[in-house]
């Protein structure tokens, strides 16, 4: 059985920037069958290629760009690139996803996956032109913003090259730096710093090779059903095209789950001013698809049309950015939120972490732990728009106090020992936009997420806050809730390995994805449950990597605020997160031991031993 013609090209491209050695190896069939691609494949490669406890910024750590069998086909949202490496922010495995058209182009170049190791002597760019690889020096590009560098590359190489780039923040190894493509980003966890550590400014790719699937007729039928289902689902056909991901903001606020002022509360009194509806009325001028074949078009283009930042064009802001610079900093100024987003995009940093850092600084300032003289004279009061913009600029440019702040909430809190209980981070990654005291499942999701606090790993908020498929009680923390979270986590791992966009799950179920995967790959998965097990395998593999790096139960924790401070407002006023109970249920349901380490039997049952 060859993988070629089954949604795969069957080839992995290895580039070592130190030796400039380039080699191609075939993708192992068993690995493809057991892990599909994307997240599964990327983590497997990371596990195999990296030595334990290596510094994430060491040349030996691979930076992996993985596609999946559905990449470049007619499946909806089929050009999300999965970036896998070791996170400089957390030291855990890092998988992050980015829209744009890089993934499909990489596949049309003849590669399923690109693995970069080593460190170039001088700033470099990798150019892959229809399979031919060239490493070129790029001193001219070093220092440019993300948009500028992409523009320069298109100018010199040609319009149809697709790129992944870093901004100045990645160059100076900021642990909150992302990798950007066409205004989209693999934002979280610091993949941009890993790329910067390799002295790699950009990758440009263009390809003419066709992608073939196993049973083209059947696949086309199933892709049609998937597209039609997305066109007929309320969330993906109406809400998200109109209001972007911020369509949920008002409801999340009503539920008391909209993080406000560094998670002190779950209700923001000015939520309506920063809702999707309000952004649509005032700022957004257009919706577009960030990725190939995306019918959802949740991406928005905003133009700031008044005030200091007038004329600035921004991609976004999305829900997470709005929460992070908005409610979480006590800010309701849409222009400021959009401008903060713009600076982050230009310099190439993650908006969630940046907002998290600023909210934390604002609380330190409120409590008198940090003074304006420590902040280059900035008075970091809640809701202070000027402070927000100045801090974002400093963090983005790594200037003044920004040099320290860019290290993230965890490292900042180490300097102020009393502050750890409201240092809103898990494993070193800043907490995203759902208050777990108002949605217990999200607490579990943050604690067990392999890359630190991430909302997309087991999105229980869909049921807990949005009423998806009949909803689930947000305050429950029993076995049922844990199983619900596990379902979401496995499902997401399948989407991430396929690779599709998470938002397809607002219309599709695992069934529609299964129905595409089978005619695409020709793999004889018996039913959708078998794919769910594949998801479990991927999650367990990620866990194995983290365990090897020394992570375990001691790290699956939440900031003390979530565990001890009762939620002050909202329908679930008075709640704290019951993490311990959920965690032990989680380990047992996963077949991991009490310390959160996957048991031998589980590994055998999941056939992981066969590929490790």
């Amino acid at each position, binding site marked *: 059985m060859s993988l070629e013609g089954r949604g795969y090209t069957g080839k992995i491209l290895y580039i070592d920037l130190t030796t400039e050695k380039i080699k191609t190896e075939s993708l192992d069939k068993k690995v493809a069958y057991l892990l599909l691609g994307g997240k599964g494949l990327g983590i497997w490669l990371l596990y195999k290629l990296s030595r334990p406890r290596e510094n994430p910024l060491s040349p030996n750590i691979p930076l992996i760009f993985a596609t999946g069998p559905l990449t470049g*086909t*007619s499946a909806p949202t089929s050009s999300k690139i999965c970036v896998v490496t070791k996170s400089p922010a957390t030291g855990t495995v890092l998988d992050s996803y980015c829209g744009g058209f890089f993934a499909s182009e990489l596949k*049309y170049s003849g590669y399923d996956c690109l693995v970069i190791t080593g460190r170039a002597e001088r700033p470099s760019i990798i150019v892959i032109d229809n399979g031919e690889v060239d490493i070129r020096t790029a001193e001219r590009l070093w220092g440019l913003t993300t948009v500028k560098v992409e523009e320069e590359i298109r100018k010199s190489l040609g319009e149809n090259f697709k790129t992944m780039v870093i901004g100045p923040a990645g160059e100076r190894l900021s642990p909150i730096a992302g990798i950007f493509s066409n205004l989209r980003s693999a934002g979280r966890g610091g993949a941009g710093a890993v790329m910067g550590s390799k002295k790699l400014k950009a990758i440009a790719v263009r*390809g*003419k*090779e*066709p*992608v*073939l*699937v196993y049973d*083209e007729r059947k696949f*086309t039928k199933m892709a049609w059903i998937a*597209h*039609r*289902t*997305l*066109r*007929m689902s*309320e969330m993906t056909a*109406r*809400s998200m095209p109109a209001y972007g991901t911020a*369509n*949920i903001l008002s*409801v999340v606020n*009503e539920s008391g789950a909209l993080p406000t002022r560094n998670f002190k509360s779950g209700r923001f009194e000015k939520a309506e001013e920063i809702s999707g509806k309000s952004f649509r009325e005032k700022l957004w*001028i*257009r919706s*577009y*698809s960030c*990725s190939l*074949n*995306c*019918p959802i*078009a949740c991406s928005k*283009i905003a133009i700031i049309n008044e005030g200091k930042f007038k004329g600035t*064009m921004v*991609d976004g802001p999305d829900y997470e950015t709005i929460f992070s610079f908005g409610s979480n900093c006590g800010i309701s100024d849409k222009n400021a939120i959009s401008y903060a987003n713009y600076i982050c995009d230009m310099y190439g940093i993650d908006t969630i972490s940046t907002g998290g850092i600023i909210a934390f600084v604002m609380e330190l300032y409120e409590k008198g732990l940090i003074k304006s003289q420590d902040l280059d004279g900035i008075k970091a009061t809640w809701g202070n728009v000027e402070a927000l913009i100045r801090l974002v600029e400093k963090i983005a440019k790594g200037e003044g106090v920004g040099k320290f702040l860019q290290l993230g909430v965890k490292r900042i809190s180490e300097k102020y020992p009393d502050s750890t209980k409201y240092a809103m981070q898990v494993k070193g990654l800043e907490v995203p936009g759902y208050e777990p005291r108002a949605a217990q499942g999200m607490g579990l999701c943050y604690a067990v997420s392999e890359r630190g606090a991430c909302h997309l790993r087991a999105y229980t908020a869909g*049921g*807990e*806050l*949005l*009423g998806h*498929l*009949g*909803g*689930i*009680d947000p305050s429950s923390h029993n076995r*049922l809730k844990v199983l*619900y979270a596990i*379902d979401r986590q496995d*499902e997401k791992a399948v989407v991430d390995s396929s690779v599709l966009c998470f938002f397809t799950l607002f219309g599709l*179920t*695992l*069934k*529609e994805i299964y*129905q595409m995967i089978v005619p695409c790959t020709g793999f004889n998965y018996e039913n*959708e*449950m078998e*794919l*769910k097990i594949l998801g479990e395998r991927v999650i367990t593999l990620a866990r194995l990597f983290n365990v090897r790096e020394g992570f375990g139960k001691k790290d699956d924790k939440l900031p003390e605020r979530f565990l001890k401070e009762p939620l002050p407002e909202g329908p679930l006023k008075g709640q704290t997160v019951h993490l311990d109970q959920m965690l032990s249920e989680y380990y047992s349901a996963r077949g991991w031991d009490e310390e959160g380490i996957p048991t031998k039997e589980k590994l055998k049952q999941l056939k992981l031993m066969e590929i490790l």
Partner: protein
Amino acid sequence: MRRKDVRLNSILNLNDGKCVILAVDHGFIFGPIKGLENVESTLKRALKGRLDAVMVSPGQAKRLSHIFGKRGAPALIVRGDWSNAFRDKTYALPVRKVQEVLIAHPKDLIHLGATGAVVYFFTGYGDENEQDQHYKRIKWFIENCEKVGLPCQVCVIPVGERVTGANFVDLLELGVRMAVEAGADILEVPYTQDITTFKRIVSAAKGVPVLCAGGPKATRLRDSLEIVVELLEAGASGVVFGRQVFQSDDPSSFLNMLYALVHEGKSVDEVIGILGRPSRLKVLPEKCIGCRLCEIICSLSHGNSFSPYKSRLRVEETQGMLKKFKPVVCTLCGSCVEACPTGALKLNPELGYLQLNEEECTGCKKCVEACPIKVLKFDEEAGIPLICDGCSGNPQCVKWCPVEAIVMEVR
């Protein structure tokens, strides 16, 4: 003939056992949604079309008895329960726990002039006790319908804490069978999105007629009609459509289309009407979201692989930063036909699309040079130009474009 059978026969068409039901009971559960601000006027408009029955809440059955009491009025199906299950994120607080209560005794529904009754049956409760209690209520209701001779329609839907993406069809199949065992006379279920799985549902019903619910309004008419054809093929006995009908521009003609599909076995093309005349592609650039699915589908339908490089149209970014896009398609200007020295390129005499006789083509590329908008490319491997042949009258780019930015226009 028993009273119940008489009533059942006025819901399901006597000749073919099928039916088209218009549901307007949404206000009960969703509030005054679009199209149902005024149920009476909506109904009056819709009833100009053909249908078999209307589904309402007890309150509307009472209020609008003057409509349903008329000779020749459609059969009346009245809801006997209420639930919060569909309250979604458009509400201040979406549903967090599925609740269902009976709100009318079947005897009362008879007094309201009901031809049939309808209740929900949910499979997916997190708590087994709640699932038991719910089943017991449904069973009680069906039994009492039987006693008064009222056919009972059971609307089976997997909602609740146990529902996952992987078990949806299994839970639906289970629920359908449980409803049949409880004595349901008609079943109503959501569409499973494909024929194969829907056949499983019909088969689990063991001969009890299965109707399919329409769900939220589709953004495209063709999508909602297409699923009707599919579910009929899978063995369904008809449809229960609400929002699809009363939120459409013309509810009565939409009902007529449904009726023609369900009772007359017509195809989607027959009810919508196809052009069948010389036509060409027309681009509406302001609608384009830049997803490039047209390029992907074009390459697939002219080969057997995904290779946008060989696509016969292209999406241009007119203003990169602003994400403005414009699909560039063949306009059938005829320059290439004129430039072709061998006559290999021709326009189809009937429908007017481009045709290439590969045997007569010498690969001289004159056509490529002649194309004023550079949409005609040359395939170096095959040695022939990549022409837009309008997919012989059924352009796939038009069919797949999610936002209808490429459409057909009569020449």
